């Protein structure tokens, strides 16, 4: 029965077409729909025009569906700086064909989905976004929450400057409770690698799975055999992917639930990124060690700096010449 009702009302809320106007029942704020942005588990999100510009509005599919999410957003807006989620601007009801539906209005995050971005701009972005994400998670965890339903669909890259942001905080759960909402692929319970208690390590597992998925855009499944070693399977997926391999130790650590806080995982990931971008340095070191011992350090470093400073000088001179010639021609033109 209830399912049926949900289904019907979902249709109602997702049917609103561009140009639809309404005024909130309680707060009397006017809205006009520009287009549909997407639909989540609990409702449909629209881009709307308000008195203060473009905003996003989520309309719930039944009477109670949005209340959890609104409660979470409200808690977030009390946190200083309001960095934990999109800021909540209005909470009200809308009447659609005689029925009341709840809705809320939030900041409109304009950007590109994580996976699309990584495909277009290169996998070297992924570890950077994961570092950003871990920073945000750490702050969220310190406020006593766990995100829960962390997945690429809930992440967006805003910018420039490119920055990962999350939205759809409907699954956000107080620490120590049972996770409210999850998606199997990113859920440690599904992989048999833990329970569904809201603790920081739950989010870190999902983060590791998101990282893995950037290399395997089609979610793979666990083997049907109940006795299979899923950790071993994930380990193999990581080993077979060159972009993931440098981070294998960190990923496995997160999958095993060994990181108790996001800060530590972030630190180790940053170190791993450093090591990856280091190969030039190691080559330099090696060539240095070949040098005879009696040479002094100072002279060595000077020697190796030379070619670089020479290049910089050349570039500076060239750009100066170019700039002055442009100015000269401009002068001629006038």
């Amino acid at each position, binding site marked *: *029965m*209830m399912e049926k009702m949900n289904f019907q009302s979902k249709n109602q809320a997702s049917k609103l077409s561009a140009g639809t106007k309404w005024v909130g029942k309680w707060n009397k704020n006017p809205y006009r729909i520009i287009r549909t942005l997407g639909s989540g588990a609990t409702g449909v999100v629209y881009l709307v025009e308000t008195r203060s510009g473009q905003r996003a509005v989520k309309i719930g599919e039944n009477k109670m569906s949005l209340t959890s999410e609104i409660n979470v957003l409200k808690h977030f807006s009390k946190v200083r700086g309001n960095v934990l989620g999109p800021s909540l601007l209005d909470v009200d009801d809308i009447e659609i064909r005689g029925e009341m539906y709840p809705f809320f209005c939030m900041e409109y995050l304009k950007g590109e989905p994580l996976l699309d971005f990584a495909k277009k701009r290169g996998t070297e972005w992924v570890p950077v976004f994961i570092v950003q994400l871990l920073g945000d998670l750490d702050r969220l965890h310190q406020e006593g929450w766990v995100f829960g339903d962390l997945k690429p669909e809930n992440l967006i890259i805003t910018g420039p400057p490119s920055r990962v942001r999350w939205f759809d905080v409907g699954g956000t759960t107080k620490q120590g409770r*049972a996770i409210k909402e999850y998606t*199997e692929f990113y859920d440690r*319970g599904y992989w048999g690698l833990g329970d569904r208690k809201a603790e920081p390590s739950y989010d870190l597992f999902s983060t590791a799975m998101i990282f893995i998925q950037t290399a395997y855009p089609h979610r793979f499944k666990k083997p*049907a055999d*109940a006795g299979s070693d899923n950790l071993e399977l994930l380990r193999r997926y990581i080993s077979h992917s060159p972009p993931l391999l440098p981070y294998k130790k960190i990923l496995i650590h997160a999958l095993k639930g060994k990181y108790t806080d996001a800060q530590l995982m972030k630190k180790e990931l940053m170190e791993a990124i450093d090591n990856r971008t280091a190969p030039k340095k190691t080559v330099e070191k090696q060539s240095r060690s070949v040098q005879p011992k009696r040479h002094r350090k100072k002279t060595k470093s000077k020697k190796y700096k030379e070619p670089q400073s020479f290049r910089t000088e050349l570039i500076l001179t060239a750009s100066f010449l170019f700039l002055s010639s442009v100015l000269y021609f401009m002068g001629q033109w006038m």
Partner: protein
Amino acid sequence: MNAGKIKQILLLTDGCSNQGEDPAAVAAFANEKGITVNVIGILEHESNRGKGMKEVENIAASGGGVSQLVYASQLSQTVQMVTKQAMTQTLQGVVHGELRQILGEEREMEDLPPDKRGEVMEVVDDLGETVNLEVLILVDTSASMKPKLPMVQEALSDLSISLNSRTGNNNFALFLFPGKRKDTEKVLDWTPKINSLTDTFHRLTTGGVTPTGPALKSALYHFEKRRGKRSLIDDGEDEFPIEESGF
């Protein structure tokens, strides 16, 4: 706040009952006794969305519970979702009832301003986390269900993971029907965790008839028996208000 107790029967089946009384009638009776009946209809392919699936909806509707049709591959997530949803529904019902007593008959939740509604929902959330839950799982093992049983098994241990991540206590019991000699067979009596079901489902002989009605009845009886035993040992336990709301 003292957490109460919620009682549910979870029926997993793939089609029509063909023996004994109307399962919807038994479900309605269970509902009167404060036991919610949830039904998950397991679909083969698009083909059998027929009469059997209508019955699934009817049983859950009479039993005051939630029903969902699903393919065997999506069973895990559905089972835990239906159980939680039914729990929230029951709790909302209780909280609504209390509110109506305070606010007067005519007032519904949606008449409250969004702020107050949020506060009520937080109470429901809190209760859902801490309430004690008893789920009697009733699995149809008629011949057509045989290939789906590994999925059922997985879904049940997944349910156990989900519910045991809560603060409140859980108790599970597992019944299969048809049983070897009787309508139903008890394979697991009340226990806080569903583990090691592997053997149970492997040595199973699947039968031809589907006595859904009688099976629901023995599930109901099993709840009563527990209650009877309990009240001899320990009278003063706080029961949840929904249980008195029957009759």
